């Protein structure tokens, strides 16, 4: 018992008084204005449906996955959405592993209400076979770092994960049309979810001095505050949820004022989420296109035989081996290392992998005759991986292709799209 008390973090009286008296004069400890949000940045992971949100020092990771399950009895035509929040002990020394504390449960409920009960995600489109099989979307929110205002950050993480999530396409087949065939992502492009609106949570903290309220409290402000309120609303002007669980009583005028502020903040955050998701989607589409790539004339001398060997060797070539002279940080115990200093930052490696993809795609066009590459450009539209594979094998035969009659080549475009 004494050990647990010894391990808890307590705020000193001096810090508490400092924060409170600064707030009376309208100053916040980190220099923000009373109604300002901290810097929000959203990064996406390697898979579809994984997002990491940084709100100042708060860090939350959201991951969306899907599974085919039986629907609920009273809703046979609708898919389900469930949200699991993990208060990882790495976020705060007071978070203990095991059963979630009451704050964790409250956070889960607030996000659940805002997202699920406001019907932000279209669940009817998740139905595959009415009454038998529907898609169940599961969102896992991992709180990695508690810098304050976990509700807002976790909400944005959930929305970002849902916006970039792609579920596999499935079709009905079999005798009665009762069998469900789930197509792997290589065969058919997975589909995004239908999201009607983005419910954004905005948290306010109230302090013992009645007129002081603050948006997006930090961890220290949360330790000092007397009450909090979270309003979840969307840009259509709908209030999806309001949560004010106990704490200091506030007059009605203050609540209305808060809702007005929340409306403007929600608009800003929605724009931010939409922009980052769009940027991610364009990059995703571009990545698929780059493998077929643009006809760029490159210096071919001396490297042609090596490149041909590489193409014949592997289909899914993402990392080009060092012999072709690109900057690769692979550690070869037998050969000398190149530039592994630059691999210290994760962002750098992603830049490098982009460069590698670019250079690899440039090489693939060295092989293709100009006509062949123009053909590959046509075959791009929902460029699936099998299309890429087809075109790579297409690339292998390019010298013959130059001789093949045109009508045969055009046939390849639709077959590549179907992914047969």
């Amino acid at each position, binding site marked *: 018992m004494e050990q647990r008390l010894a391990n808890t973090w307590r705020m000193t009286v001096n810090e508490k008084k400092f924060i409170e008296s600064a707030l009376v004069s309208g100053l916040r400890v980190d220099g923000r204005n009373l109604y300002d949000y901290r810097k929000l940045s959203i990064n996406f992971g390697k898979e579809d449906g994984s997002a990491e949100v940084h709100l100042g020092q708060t860090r939350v990771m959201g991951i969306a996955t899907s599974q085919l399950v039986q629907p609920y009895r009273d809703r046979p035509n609708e898919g389900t959405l469930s949200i699991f929040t993990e208060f*990882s002990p790495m976020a705060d020394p007071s978070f203990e592993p095991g059963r979630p504390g009451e704050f964790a449960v409250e956070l889960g409920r607030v996000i659940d209400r805002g997202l699920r009960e406001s019907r932000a995600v279209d669940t009817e489109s998740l139905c595959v076979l009415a009454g038998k099989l529907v898609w169940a979307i599961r969102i896992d929110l991992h709180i990695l770092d508690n810098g304050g205002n976990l509700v807002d950050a976790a909400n944005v993480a959930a929305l970002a994960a849902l916006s970039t999530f792609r579920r596999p396409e499935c079709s009905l087949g079999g005798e009665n049309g009762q069998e469900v065939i789930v197509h792997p992502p290589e065969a058919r492009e997975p589909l995004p979810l239908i999201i009607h609106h983005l419910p954004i949570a905005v948290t306010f903290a109230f302090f013992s001095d009645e007129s002081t309220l603050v948006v997006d409290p930090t961890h220290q402000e949360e330790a000092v505050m007397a009450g909090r309120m979270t309003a979840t609303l969307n840009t259509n002007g709908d209030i999806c949820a309001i949560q004010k669980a106990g704490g200091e009583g506030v007059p009605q005028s203050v609540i209305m004022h808060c809702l007005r502020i929340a409306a403007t903040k929600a608009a800003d955050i929605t724009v931010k989420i939409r922009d980052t998701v769009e940027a991610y989607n364009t990059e995703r589409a571009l990545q698929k296109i780059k493998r077929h790539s643009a006809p760029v004339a490159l210096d071919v001398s001396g490297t042609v035989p090596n490149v041909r060997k590489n193409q014949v060797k592997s289909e899914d070539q993402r990392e080009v081996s060092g012999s072709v002279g690109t900057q690769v940080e*692979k550690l070869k115990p037998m050969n000398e290392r190149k530039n592994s200093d630059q691999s210290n930052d994760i962002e750098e490696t992603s830049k490098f992998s982009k460069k590698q993809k670019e250079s690899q795609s440039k090489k693939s066009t060295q092989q293709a005759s100009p006509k062949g590459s123009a053909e590959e450009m046509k075959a791009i539209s929902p460029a699936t991986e099998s299309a890429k594979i087809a075109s790579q094998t297409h690339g292998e035969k390019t010298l013959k292709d130059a001789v093949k009659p045109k009508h045969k080549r055009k046939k390849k475009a639709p077959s590549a799209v179907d992914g047969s």
Partner: protein
Amino acid sequence: MEIDRADGRNPNQLRPLSCSRGVLNRAHGSASWAQGNTQVLAAVYGPKAGTKKNENPEKASVEVIWKPKTGQIGKQEKEYEMVLKRTLQSICILTIHPNTTTSVIVQVVHDDGALLPCAINASCAALVDAGIPLKHLAVAICCCLADSGLVMLDPTKLEEEKMKAFVYLVLPNSILSVLPEESSSVKGEQMEQGLITSVTHGVMSVDDYLHCLERGRAATSKMSDFLRRNLQPQLSSDSSKAG
């Protein structure tokens, strides 16, 4: 005979490594380690008072919490926790802070093969970031054995599933000694020849295992150079995390 690896590496090639320390604000030490697409985030909370019931209170103890990316915690996670705990206990100096618990929390960000070695490397870097006293560093690597008998290093998830067997090896960091002649030796053997942890999956013959061990050792010398360079104190301000 050359086996074609899907990403074009040769059998002795590792995926690009990247390591960042100090990524979290509340944790006393944190590190993110990525090997290719496998990425793991580790956080360390420095010695907390008290040990758990079945731990020896005369020594410091290490507690490991493994958080998978999605889904519930099952036996696989418990196994990883146990292996990680025993590995870290052997590298920490346990006699300095008796009756304390150091917590290491591992969060899987993405799993693309060689997950446990990645986590061990991340935890080691996080322990250094937290300033926990260690005897030496550890580097972990995964070697897999194909049906043909070819040994490959650092497999991706697809490769791991296709292989006949694979082994996770944890070896001590190579020694950079100030005194050139003296190198700590245990019973006449160099310490660098030691092996901290080895976890095997699948069937492999003794010769194959020893072969994997040799290959792994050769690879880890390069990896430990990378680790050492990465752990050089950063010149940018490292604010104190004690608050």
